[in-house]
Structures are given as C-alpha cells and as structure tokens.
C-alpha cells in the first residue's frame, strides 16, 4: 500500500509577531508569513501548486493566490477547528505522495486579540455548520457560550476521578511560561510567572484560572511542504513527515466531548497517537520533544496519558514540579512556550517549534533532537504529527 510516510518534508516556516493588535488584515498577515516561509525555503509563489487552510480561516485560497500572484495552484482544501494544523500537514503530505502537487503552502492567521476578524465568531454568525448548531442549541441558552466552559467541566471530572488538587495545573503553566520567557519571538518574552501569581489568578470558569487559559491575540503562521526529493536540493535541512493522522469519534465536539460515558479523557488523541506511532514506527520513548495542545493547561497531562508517555490518571503527578516536562526532562513539552507561553495561533506555532527543534535552531534547543511530536485540537477533533530529520 502506498503511504505518505517519509515522502514530504517541511522546508520553509514563517511566523508573525504575536500582538494584541497587529493593525493589519488577516489576509495581509497570511501573505506576509507565506512570503517569509517561501524565503526561508528559497522558493517563490510560482513554485507553489497546493494550499491547505483551516475551516475558520478568513483567507481563502483564491484570495491568497490573487494577492501573491500564484499562477499554478491546482490542489487545495481545508481541515477543521483547532484540530486542524497537524491534519493540514497530513493533507499536504498526501497530495504530494499521490502526485497531485509538488509544493504546498499551509497557512493560518487569526486576529484574536484585536477582534478584527474577517470571519465573525460563531455566536454571531448566521453561517454555522450543523455541528456548531447542535453545540450552541443545547448549550448556549444555559450560558455555556464559550468552549472554556466545556473544558472546565471536563477538568472538574478529571480532578474528581483521579483525586487531583486545586492549583495542580500551575506547574504546567509555569514550564510553558519559563520556556516562553526565553523566547524573543513570543508574546511572553521575559515575562516569567511565579506559582504565587498563578494561585492569585482570577477564577474564570471554575476550576480554570485565567492563567490556565490561552490568551486571544493576533498572529499568523505558514509552512512550505514539498517532496522529500525536492527538499534535498533546498536551503534548509528537510524535516520529514513520518506520521500524521486525524480523529473524530461519536460525541466529539469542539474542545470536550461532554456526552460520552467518561469525559475525563481524550479518545481522539489516543486514536491519533496510535496511528502516528504505528505509521512512523516509533514509540513515545523515542520522541525528543512533544509540542502539545495547551490551549488550557489541563489538556497537557491528559494528552501525555492518551499518547502513552505515562499511565492513565498519572498525567498530573508526571507533570508535578515540572522537571519531567522541562528541557532536560523525560519528555520536553512546548519548548518555545506553546499557547500559554509563546502565543496562541490555534496550535500552528507548535509545529513551527517542532521544526526549529529538528533544525537545531530553537531558542530552547534540546540536544540532538531528531524526532518531534505535535498534537492539535486535544479534547475535540484532534490531529497529530511526527516529524523527523
């Protein structure tokens, strides 16, 4: 059977600054980061014949091709919600392996801080999909109007089920902020957090504190993916896509499946993990860095459990004190800071950092990193990726 394993590689990355208000349209930051990524790869818009975006993203492929003068686009598509980024990598790799395209742009821009978004938020949009309508019809009248509330209920059950103490997630936030404080590209550069600050942080939606939650901001990211053969002739060390998968299951919803028997877990992440480890032919012990979805801090220990880095229910003790997930720990997590410590661009920057680690150019470089794992969209429709050099 044909596989896309080791057939495509990331050869260019572009990341915008993270700001509260960038003063630009999302289309402009999309195009700017694509330009950066093309320059990083040593390619031009003429070389691009594929494009993958996220369903909520405002910058459609025809807007980008017009804006950047891309005359050769013949392969495009999109993947869903926060779970999109690793799935976007998968679509790119599949298109390349199948011979439908040679060089694919992957892009995402969100003006989340300034709220100058081209796509209105779901709650004011008249253009909701069926699953959005199902979600909002049965939740919004009761005041559950933000996904944070769903994550809060999942977290509450997780804490009750495994006897987890209040404030136990502070160590995870601390490690992300510690990594992010050293990262000049990040929103939280030189802004370390103390556990005292964490414990005094406002309780937003019980048991989630303000510092447990990613902050909305403006940002954009782009990647260039091409065939492994072509990648060998380009400027950068090719970072190969060794495994990628998506998972949606019965009762999957955005961020937390509240109607399944046991909500203190993430079966989508388990499904993704099983598939990407099998495909790449590696195990959790082989992975050098894990860039996990930290939109909300409690997602991190649950992902570590579902991926097999620790046993079920042991994610919080595993992260306790932070040493096992720090740079020299058993599995360094979110080495550039992730959503909580670098910036929130719906998990796109997590893949950027996985690539930097494998190129050996991370600000928090893990020595000899050769295999990187990324998860997007934990708790909801998830996707996962294993990259290698």
């Amino acid at each position, binding site marked *: 059977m044909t596989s896309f394993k080791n057939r495509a590689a990331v050869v260019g990355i572009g990341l915008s600054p993270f700001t509260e208000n960038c003063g630009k349209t999302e289309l402009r930051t999309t195009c700017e980061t694509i330009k950066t990524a093309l320059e990083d790869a040593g390619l031009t818009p003429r070389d691009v014949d594929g494009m993958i975006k996220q369903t909520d993203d405002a910058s459609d492929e025809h807007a980008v091709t017009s804006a950047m003068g891309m005359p050769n686009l013949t392969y495009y598509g999109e993947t869903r919600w926060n779970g999109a980024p690793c799935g976007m990598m998968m679509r790119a790799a599949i298109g390349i392996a199948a011979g439908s395209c040679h060089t694919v742009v992957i892009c995402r821009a969100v003006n989340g801080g300034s709220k100058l978004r081209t796509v209105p938020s779901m*709650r004011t949009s008249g253009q*909701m999909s069926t699953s959005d*309508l*199902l979600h*909002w*019809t*049965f*939740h*919004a*009248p*009761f*005041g*559950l*109007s*933000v996904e*944070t*509330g769903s994550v*809060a*209920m*999942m977290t*509450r*059950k997780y804490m*009750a089920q495994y006897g987890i103490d209040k404030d136990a997630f502070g160590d995870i936030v601390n490690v992300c902020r510690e990594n992010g404080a050293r990262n000049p590209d990040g929103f939280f550069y030189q802004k370390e957090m103390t556990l005292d600050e964490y414990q005094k942080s*406002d*309780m*937003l*939606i*019980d*048991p989630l504190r*303000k510092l447990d*939650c990613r902050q909305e901001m403006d940002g954009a990211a782009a990647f260039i993916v091409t065939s492994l053969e072509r990648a060998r002739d380009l400027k950068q060390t090719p970072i190969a896509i060794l495994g990628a998968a998506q998972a949606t299951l*019965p009762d999957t919803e955005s961020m937390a499946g*509240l*109607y399944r028997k046991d*909500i203190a877990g993430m079966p989508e992440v388990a499904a993704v993990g099983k598939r990407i480890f099998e495909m790449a032919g590696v195990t959790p012990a082989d992975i050098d860095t894990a860039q996990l979805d930290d939109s909300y801090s409690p997602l991190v220990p649950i992902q570590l459990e579902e991926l097999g880095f620790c046993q079920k229910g042991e994610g919080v003790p595993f992260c306790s004190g932070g040493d096992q997930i720090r740079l020299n720990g058993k599995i360094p997590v979110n080495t550039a800071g992730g959503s909580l410590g670098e910036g929130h661009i719906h998990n796109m920057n997590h893949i950027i950092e996985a690539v930097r680690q494998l190129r050996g150019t991370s600000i928090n470089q893990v020595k000899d990193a050769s295999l990187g794992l990324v998860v997007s969209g934990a708790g909801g429709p998830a996707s996962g990726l294993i990259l290698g050099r």
Partner: protein
Amino acid sequence: MKMTYVQGIPILRPYIDFDNEEFWKAHQEGKLVFQQCKNCGLTVHRPRPMCPRCLDTEPNWVESTGLGKIYSWTTFRYDRAAYPGIQVPYIVVLVDMVEGVRMLSNLEGVEPEDIEVGMPVEVFFDRVDDDLVLPKFKRRET
C-alpha cells in the same frame, strides 16, 4: 443561588429544526422528553436524525422522570468569560438522567461549595422569556 438575566441582552435561543423541535416544544407544557428509537428502544439526548445503534429514523418522544445525578459542573465566575446576558456567578451542570442519557443545563438553589459529583437532582421549568422555557435542575432530597 438563583440565576439573574440581564435586561436588554437577549438569552441565546436554541436553533429549532425538524430533528429537535419536539424536545423544545415539550417544555412549554412542563414536560421533559427524550428521543427513543421505535425499533430498538435506545434513548438518546441530544435529538438526532437517526438512531446511532440501528440507524432507524422513526423516534418516539418519551417523557422523562426528570430525575438524575450531577456528573460534572462548573461555575461561571468572571463576567468577561461568561455570557453577558446572565449575571455571574451561575452554574452549568451535566446531569446523568435515570433514563441513561446526559443533558446539559443549569443548577439553581444550591451554592457551588455544596455541589458534588453524584448529587441527586430533579428538573424544574423556568420561563426565562415569553417564548422560551428552559428545563433546569434543583437539588433532590432523598
């Protein structure tokens, strides 16, 4: 704790369609109903176009006992992270009903400190607006 709605900000309305209208209509008569498959008898919530077990498309709508237990809950405490039409704090709960389905709702008449997983609750109906009745929950004495 009783919920207070903010004047001038509309409560978000359910999007009522062919699949779910029976559920919402029943509240006007003070009834909580769930969808039950005519063919295999599986009870589900939320309403859907097809039985996920046998794929039959003909449901019955059966009246619930209104009794259940708290599965999980959260308190919206911070106004900027809550729906602006409802005064914080307010409690959102997941209730496991005796019919074997889970539903999301609000809990009233209980302070957050007194809630625990497994606490018995029963439904009541709150006319929150002229055209909208919501099924909510209160503590059940056992």
